[in-house]
């Protein structure tokens, strides 16, 4: 193995792990103030919103991403199993990108 590459990998591992670990030192068993608690409950929804859009339409074929995304919206509202939502969204996106 190439030592430069190993060095890069170890460095990447360190700078990726530290931000994942640090918040753990902030949250002890003593808990947090109520407004922080409420804010933290909002974080997943805000993060998902940002992770989904506009990334989903920035692939090679935005229309395929859009079609797959809309499929997932409908199936998600119907509360189907996640694996099924994913499979059908992929199928629709593939079909659309094949024909358009």
């Amino acid at each position, binding site marked *: 193995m190439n030592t430069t590459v190993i060095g890069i990998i*170890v460095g990447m591992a360190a700078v990726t792990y530290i931000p994942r670990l640090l918040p753990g030192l902030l949250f002890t068993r003593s808990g947090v103030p109520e407004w922080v608690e409420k804010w933290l409950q909002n974080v997943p929804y805000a993060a998902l919103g940002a992770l989904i859009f506009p990334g989903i339409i920035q692939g090679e074929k935005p229309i395929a991403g859009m079609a797959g995304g809309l499929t997932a919206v409908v199936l998600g509202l119907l509360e189907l199993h996640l694996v099924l939502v994913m499979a059908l969204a992929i199928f629709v996106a593939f079909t659309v990108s094949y024909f358009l």
Partner: protein
Amino acid sequence: MHEKHILRQFLTGARTGLPVAVGYVPIAVAFGTLATRASLSPQETVLMSALVFAGASQFMAVSMILSGVGGLQIVIATLFINLRHFVMSMAVHHSLQKTSLAWRGLLSFGVTDETFALLTLQDAGEQTRHTHVFAAGLIGMAYMGWVAGTAIGSLGAQVIPPAIGDAMTIGLYAMFIGLLMPHVRRSRRIAFIAVVSMILNTALSAVMSAGWAIVLSTVLGASLGLLGGASEA
């Protein structure tokens, strides 16, 4: 805790993590293929997935290695791309606050966009949710998908077209949407937060890197959500 009980929680976690593993495999295969074609040995390729476990930064690192960028720059770029996990990890650590710091230290290695989303949003029943054993099963499943997929891609580098990963990323987006929609349906406040963050991220990503735009949109979106807190549905 009874032993059988622990095993059941672990398996529930693994089953909950299955969508992430399914979504990771094709992308990891593509990463393994690209990295090995870009002159990394199969051992180095798998080592990167095993130690870093953060997709976007790994793809970036490989393309930077390929274009001859220095190691320090790659590590600094990795830090910035993965800083978004800091905010996500806050929510994960908080949901696991009854767990010892040693366990959380170990589990926090496995916080990615996807495991974070499942750990904080997927309803696996009050009994199992928020236990470190459940989280270990979920993260273990996702990690296995990522590392095994990388190995498959790396070993099959000569025969697998790297483009498959590109088309498959829609699967993880679909997972995010599938996780979000049931909550959106039940609460107008949650719908508000998600839509505001989408708008913020669209605007911000025009003027800064994608990683920073996600961090800022998450922080601002979650904060704006506090304003409408009284009208919880």
